[in-house]
Every structure is written in structure tokens, then in C-alpha cells.
């Protein structure tokens, strides 16, 4: 049975608490800052928010439950979504269903984290029981080691080269030049990319994200309510998620998108060529290539030729990670899973000052999260379209 569509619901008011390299503030401070920004952007009293989705790694020992008391909010719909790089797409999906069902009228979706001298190491050491037992003791490379093994297998299977990965990283850095929210805006050349020091071969410095602190958020509500509030909105044309897809694959060369992408495009009534903007979860460029393949932008294994055949800058053939992605904006923990959603909302709403893609009516957003052991477990994607188009 095919899933019901997301008619009658919009996402609006993408906001960001600017990323910083390190912070003395805790995660709750960043989440509260985004909630304050959402109230201001939506022209809403805090009490008008009756639904809440929260994602954070460094909020521990607290969860979304404790956060409601910290900000004195009484939602009748509450989601705690510890889904890393997929949490933004999944929050949007959950929130839209809650609004459709009448379980909430206005849902605030938030993700954010702090960063300090020990937070990233602590996060890696305790990330999951499998990682703690069977990856971390082998050199504490964290996700770098696991993704290096995936990248090595992907290069051998597809013929991808470092220059292919570099093309994506260089294009994203060029896109970041127009984004005042990006922490890394100085130009990056392919030669610089190729000459960078190795981190976990075949991954080198510019394949890896820079951990930072920050937060992102957006609102989800009925389309007529947004209209009454005078808020421009973005429709959800199709959405999918899948967890632990293909558990028998010995190495992850595909994520869950391959299971559900036909349902996604059928629900949207659209095809990849109808997208003016694509945002992927780019914790490493190789993972963006898995998403291109998984979502049908190219055939399985054809990621390298797809990268060689396209220009991923703002004015290119396929504007991709138009704000610079995590590779240039920084990875603010769970906010990394919101960043592709928030950037896509800005593009479709025409609010991407300095990096606006011309005529960006529709966007594909992909999420990928939680490298529990040897692979990322959460895959998700959403097709967005400007309301009234």
C-alpha cells in the first residue's frame, strides 16, 4: 500500500543559531536560542507551539523531555530523534504527520549541539555499544575509520578517485563563499584538496568535517495557518525513511534510499531531473555519492561518472549543498542532520542571500545517520516544493 501524501502541511521559518568552533554554552542554550529565533520568525508566542521535535548529542543526560521543562513549554506532541544525519528529514516527516492527524498545530523542530575540548572525544567513545566494543578500541579513529573503510571499498568497486571526491568538496567550498553562516569560506583548490594530509586513508583533511557548536530549526504547520500568519511555506511532496537497510551487505556501498526511492518519486509525481537543488548529508564526499546513486540521480556504481559530468556550484548543472554543506559550514553535531533541510527551505523560499539558485522551486534533501558499527543505519529523503507552485 502506498503511503498517504503530505497535503495541507508546510515547513517554514528556517533559522540558524550561528555555528562557532567551540563554545562554553551547553547544548540546551543552543536549542533555546533556536526556539527563540523560531518564535520571532513565526511571529508566535512560545505557548502557541504545541509540538516539539528535538535532536542533540550533547544534551545528555537530558532528552527532549527535560528540555520542555528547561524552556517551560507544554507540547502535546514530543519527539526525541537521536538519528544523527537523518534527524532533520525525519523530524520534518514526523511533524507533518502530527499536524495532518491533528495531534499538533504548530511543531517546532530543533537540533543543536555544543562543542568543547572533550565533547567530540566523549561522543565517539560512547557513541554506541558496538562502536565502543568493536571500533573505538582499534585506534579511536571515530567515524573517520569506519568511513575510510567504506570509501576504500567504494573506490575499488566503482573506480572513484580522490579527484572525484575533491570535485564535490571544492564545489561546496565555492558555494560557501556566499554563505555568511559557513565557518570555512576561504577558497579551496583541487590541488590543495589533493595535497592535504592523510587522516584515515583514503580520507584526507578536506574529506572530513570540522566539529563545531550551533543549532538549526524550522516550523511545521497547516498550510492555511501559515497563510494566516503571513509565513511563506514549503510543501512536502514526498518523504521516505529506512533503517538498517541491506544488513547482509558485507560493506556499505548503498543505503536505504535504494529500497524506497521509487516510492519517493512516485509520491512526489516527479523525477530527479525536476529538482533545481539537491542537498545531501556530506559527512564525507563519498557519502554524497552514495546518496546520488541511492536516490536515482544516477545508476548504482555510476557515482564517479555522474560527478565528472556535472557542475555542483550554484550556477552549475546540479547545485548541490549550496550553503557549503557540513564540509564548509562545520558539523554542529545533530544540527548536521538539519543543515540540508534548512538550506533547502531557504533555497525554495528564495531566502538564500548570496547563494540563491535561480528559480529554485523544488529541492531534494537527503539524510544519512548513525554509524553504529561499520555502516550508517538511518537513511531518509524528502522532496520539497514551493507552496503555490
Amino acid at each position: 500500500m502506498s503511503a498517504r501524501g503530505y497535503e495541507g502541511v508546510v515547513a517554514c521559518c528556517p533559522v540558524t543559531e550561528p555555528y562557532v568552533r567551540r563554545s562554553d554554552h551547553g547544548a540546551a542554550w543552543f536549542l533555546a536560542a533556536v526556539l527563540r529565533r523560531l518564535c520571532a520568525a513565526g511571529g508566535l508566542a512560545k505557548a502557541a507551539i504545541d509540538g516539539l521535535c528535538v535532536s542533540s548529542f550533547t544534551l545528555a543526560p537530558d532528552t527532549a523531555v527535560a528540555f520542555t521543562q528547561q524552556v517551560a513549554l507544554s507540547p502535546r506532541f514530543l519527539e526525541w530523534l537521536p538519528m544523527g544525519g537523518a534527524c532533520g528529514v525525519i523530524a520534518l516527516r514526523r511533524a507533518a504527520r502530527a499536524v495532518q492527524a491533528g495531534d499538533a498545530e504548530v511543531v517546532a523542530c530543533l537540533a543543536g549541539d555544543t562543542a568543547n575540548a572533550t565533547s567530540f572525544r566523549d561522543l565517539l567513545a560512547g557513541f554506541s555499544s558496538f562502536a565502543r566494543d568493536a571500533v573505538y578500541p582499534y585506534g579511536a579513529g571515530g567515524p573517520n575509520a569506519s568511513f575510510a573503510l567504506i570509501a576504500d571499498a567504494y573506490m575499488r568497486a566503482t573506480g572513484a578517485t580522490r579527484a572525484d571526491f575533491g570535485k564535490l568538496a571544492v564545489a561546496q567550498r565555492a558555494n560557501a563563499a556566499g554563505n555568511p553562516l559557513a565557518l570555512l569560506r576561504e577558497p579551496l583548490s583541487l590541488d590543495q584538496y589533493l595535497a592535504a594530509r592523510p587522516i584515515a586513508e583514503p580520507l584526507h583533511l578536506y574529506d572530513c568535517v570540522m566539529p563545531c557548536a550551533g543549532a538549526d530549526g524550522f516550523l511545521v504547520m497547516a498550510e492555511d495557518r501559515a497563510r494566516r500568519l503571513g509565513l511563506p511555506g514549503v510543501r512536502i511532496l514526498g518523504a521516505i525513511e529506512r533503517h538498517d537497510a541491506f544488513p547482509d551487505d558485507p560493506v556499505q556501498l548503498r543505503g536505504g534510499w535504494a529500497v524506497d526511492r521509487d516510492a519517493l518519486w512516485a509520491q512526489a509525481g516527479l523525477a530527479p531531473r525536476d529538482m533545481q537543488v539537491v542537498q545531501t548529508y556530506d559527512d564525507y564526499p563519498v557519502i554524497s555519492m552514495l546518496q546520488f546513486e541511492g536516490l536515482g540521480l544516477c545508476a548504482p556504481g555510476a557515482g564517479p561518472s555522474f560527478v565528472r559530468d556535472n557542475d555542483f556550484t550554484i550556477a552549475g548543472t546540479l547545485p548541490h549543498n549550496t550553503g557549503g554543506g557540513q564540509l564548509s559550514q562545520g558539523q554542529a553535531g545533530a544540527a548536521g542532520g538539519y543543515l540540508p533541510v534548512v538550506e533547502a527551505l531557504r533555497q525554495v523560499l528564495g531566502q538564500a542571500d548570496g547563494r540563491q539558485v535561480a528559480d529554485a522551486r523544488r529541492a531534494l534533501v537527503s539524510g544519512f545517520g548513525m554509524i553504529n558499527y561499520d555502516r550508517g543505519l538511518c537513511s531518509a529523503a524528502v522532496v520539497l516544493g514551493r507552496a503555490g507552485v
Partner: protein
Amino acid sequence: MSAGARGRMSAGARMIRLQRCAACGTAQYPPRAFCHHCLSDRIGWEEADALPGRVLARTSLHHTHEPRFRAHLPITLALVRFDAGPVAVCFLTGTAAPGDAVRVRRNEDDLLEAA
């Protein structure tokens, strides 16, 4: 505990152990309290001096988040598929490349080492 039992335990401490479900026969790694396939909790252990496998991918770590590993960089790791089925992250010694057969042992730190 008798001296004999201690002796057997310390000898066994260097054996590599792989879980196998007593109900359905599925092998698994990392260890857990139930079978991922049939969900039975009748989990047994197979022990050997070394287990055969094949390298799926390899990496050399040049960076670590733990100070105690810094003196050992670069550290070479492999993703190894045991002939028995499961996949494990192992230290790699020697020159084995992806596709090559290796044997995996448990080292003095209780960690897996492929060569």
C-alpha cells in the same frame, strides 16, 4: 578456583571467540545477548587459535582522538569478513590487500588482529 581452571582460562584468553546461535546456527559479531537472525538467547561460543577470513577494505589511520594511540600511528585497520560470515574491524599486520585471505587472532590486548 583451581590452578587447573586458571590455566585453562588464561590459555583460552588468547583464543578468538565467535558467537554462534544454538537455535539456528547463525554466526555473529560484534557479540550480543541474542541471535540477530532468530532472536533466540541460546548463544554459544566457538573458539579457535585463529579464524580464516578475507579482507574487504583497509585504511591507515594517521589521526586519533585518544592520546594513548598517538605513539602507534599510523595504525592499519582492515574490514575482514570471516569465512563463517560476520564482518569485523581488525588491526592488520603485514601487506594483505582487499581480496586477500587472512587469519584473524586475538592479541594480548584482547583485540582482533589479521595477518
